C-alpha cells in the first residue's frame, strides 16, 4: 500500500475509535435514563400479597393483563388526589384486562388500612416491606406509576401526579 494511503487509514481508524468512545460516553450520560428500569425494558418480576390476601405474580399476568403499577405513600398529597381517579377507572377497566397494583412504600399496615378505608379504594394494595420493590424498580419521587403491557414490557413511566384524563388514557394504553 502506498505510504500516504496507509497513513490515512491509520488516522481514520484512530480518530473513529476516539470518536466512538466520546459518542458512547455522551450517549450513555444524556440519552439513557439512569433509572434502574427504563421504558422498553422488561419489568422486573415480583410477587406481592395484597391486603386482601391475594397473591400477584407479575410474570403470571404475562399474555393476559396490562399492569398499572403505582408506588405511593399515605403522606403523599398527589397520591391522595390521584387515587380516586385510579379507583374509578379501575372499575371500568378491570374486566378489560387491566390490573392495578398499588405498592405502598413500607408504611405500617395500620396506616395503609386506614387510608384504604378513608378513600374507599377497591384496587389491590400491597406494602413493600424492606424496600425490595422500591430498590428493584429504583423508585424515587412519589407517586411513580409504571405502565406494563401484557408482554411484561414497561411502556411508560410517570413520575408525579396524574389527572383523571391521563389515568384513563394510560389504562387504555395497556389494555390487552
Amino acid at each position, binding site marked *: 500500500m502506498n505510504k500516504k494511503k496507509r497513513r490515512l487509514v491509520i*488516522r481514520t481508524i484512530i480518530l473513529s475509535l476516539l470518536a466512538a468512545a466520546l459518542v458512547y460516553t455522551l450517549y*450513555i450520560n444524556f440519552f439513557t435514563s439512569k433509572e434502574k428500569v427504563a421504558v422498553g425494558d422488561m419489568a422486573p418480576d415480583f*410477587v406481592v400479597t395484597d391486603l386482601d390476601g391475594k397473591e400477584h405474580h407479575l410474570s403470571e399476568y404475562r399474555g393476559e393483563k396490562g399492569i398499572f403499577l403505582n408506588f405511593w405513600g399515605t*403522606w403523599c398529597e398527589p397520591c391522595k388526589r390521584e387515587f380516586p381517579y385510579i379507583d374509578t377507572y379501575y372499575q371500568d377497566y378491570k374486566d378489560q384486562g387491566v390490573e392495578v397494583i398499588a405498592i405502598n412504600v413500607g408504611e405500617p399496615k*395500620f*396506616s395503609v388500612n386506614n387510608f384504604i378505608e378513608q378513600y374507599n379504594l377497591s384496587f389491590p394494595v400491597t406494602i413493600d416491606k424492606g*424496600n425490595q420493590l422500591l430498590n428493584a424498580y429504583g423508585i424515587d419521587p412519589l407517586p411513580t406509576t409504571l405502565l406494563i403491557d401484557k408482554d411484561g414490557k414497561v411502556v411508560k413511566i410517570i413520575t408525579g401526579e396524574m389527572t383523571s384524563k391521563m389515568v384513563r388514557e394510560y389504562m387504555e394504553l395497556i389494555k390487552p
Partner: protein
Amino acid sequence: MENVKCECGHVNPHGTIFCEACGKPVQNEETQGDKEKKQLLDMRYEGSARRSQTYNKTIVDKIWNFFSSVKVGIWIIVVLLVASALGTIYPQELYIPPAMDPADFYEEEYGITGRLYYQLGFHNLYGSWWYMILIAMLGISLIICSIDRVVPLYKALKKQGVTRHENFLKRQRVYGKSGVENVDNDFETVKEKLRKKRYSVREENGNILAEKGRFSRWGPYVNHCGLIIFLIGAMLRFVPGMYVDEVIWIREGETASLPGTNGKYYLESEKFIVEVYEKGKEKEVFDEALDIAGSGMVVKNFQTDVKLYERVDEIIPGVEPELKEVKTHQIQVNKPLKHDHYAVYQVDYKLNEFSTMSFNMVDKETNQEFGSITINLRDPQEKYDLGNGYSIELASYFPDFFFNDEGEPSTKTRVPNNPAFVFKMFAPDKPEGEISFVAIQQNIEPMGDNKYKMAFSGVDMKNVSGLTVRRDFTLWILAVGGAIFMIGVIQGSYWHHRRIWIQRKNNEVIVAGHTNKNWFGLKNEIRYVLADTGIAEPIDQVDAKNKENKEG
C-alpha cells in the same frame, strides 16, 4: 511535498530541519541571515518532520492536524481551567438544599447570573455535556500529539549517524574545536572514560558518538499513556454495572435489602453508637484542645454494628427472602464492611428517632390506672386490650403530625418525628368509647369532657445509620493509569538523555554535546572525559553569549 536529499546521500522527508543521518541543517544556508546562521539548532524532536505539519489534504488530515497541535492542546487545558474555576463561583447542584428545584434556586438566590450559571450547566459542571466534550478533546489531543511526535522522534534517534556534519556540531550549545597532537591516544583514553561513565559508544571512521539515557526521552509519552488509561477508567464509570453508589438509611434492629446489589444482600443494623472524647475523662493535657475544638467534646467514633445476609433463594422482589448470614462487622468511618466487591461505608446518622411510645389509661379524677399500652411506631396495632373490660382502639395515627392546609391533622412524612394518635378508650362504664387526640405535650378531647385519658408514660428511641453502598470496578484501572503516569514522570525526570560527539579531521578535534536537561551535568562529564588529554574543553555557547551581552 518532495523529499530532500542531503549531501551525505540520505533522503529526508519534507519538513525535516536537519538531516536525519549527518545532521546538516536542511534549510538553505544562503537564504539565512547572518543572525540566524549563528543560532543554535532547535533540537526538539531531533529536527524530525512532524508529519502533521507537512500535509493537509483530506478532512481526516485536517482533524488530525488540529488535534496534533500543542497550541490547541494548551488552549483546551486553559478553557478547562477557566470553566472549572467558574464552576466554583456558586455552589454545585449537590450542595444546594435538596428540597429546592435547581432551576428556581439559582435564579432566586443569585439573580440573572445565577440563571445563566444554571442554564449553561455550571451547576453540575462535571456532568455537563460541554465539559465532558472538552475533557474528551483533551484526551484526543493527548493521544494524537503523542503519536505524532513519538514515532518520528523514535525513528530519528534510531537512524542517527555517528559522523555528523560540521554545521550540525557548530550549532550545538556545547561546542569546541581544538588542535591535538596525539589524536589516537587521546581518543582511546576518551572512549575508556566514556564507558566508565556508562555511555554507549559508537564509532565510525574514527569519529565517536557517545550516548546515554535515551530512555528518558520516552518519559512524557509513557506519562501520557497513563493519563489516557486514567481517562478510560473515568469513562468506564458510566458503563452500567461498573460503578455503584447508593445510600441506605437503616434503623437499629431493622433488616433491609441493600440497594445496588440487585436484591442479593440484606443488612441488619444491630446498633449505632457515637463515642466522644470528653473533657475530664481524658488526660488533663487535652482539656484545652477539647475546649477549643468542640466546647469540651470531640467525636471519637461513629459506628454501626451490622450483620450482612445473602439471599439464598431465587431473587424475586416481594417474596419473603431466605437469608443466610455472611458476616458481622463494625462499620466505622473509613472502615467499611467489605464483601463481594461491595463496600458499605458509615457516612451519616440520626440519633434518637422515636421507636415506641407507652401510655397509661387513667381516670382523670381519681388518677387510677387501668393498664398501659406500648405502641410500636413502625407498626402500630389496631386494638390493645387492657383486661377487665378496658381496651384501647387506635383510630388514627400520624407519624409526623402537622395540621394541613384544611386544618386537619395529617402527616408530613412516614418517619415518626412527631407522632400523634387518635385513641378510642373503652371502659365498662363507657361502652361507646371516648375519643382522645394525643400528640406530644397535647391532649385534645374533641367530643367534650372525657372521664379517661391516655397519659404518656414513656418512650423508646432508636438510632438510625446513614450508610453508602459502593462498588467500583474502575478503581484498578485508575490505579494502573496513575502508576504508569508516575513511571513516566520518574523516567523523564531522573534520567537524562546525553550525547557527546567527538570528531576529528587530521589533527583538529571537534567536541559537541547535547542533553535534554541539566547542561551542568553534561559539561561536568565532558570535563571528566577530556581531562588528561590534549583535547580542549568545549564551551557553552549560551553561557558565552549571555556573558557577552552582560559585558557589552
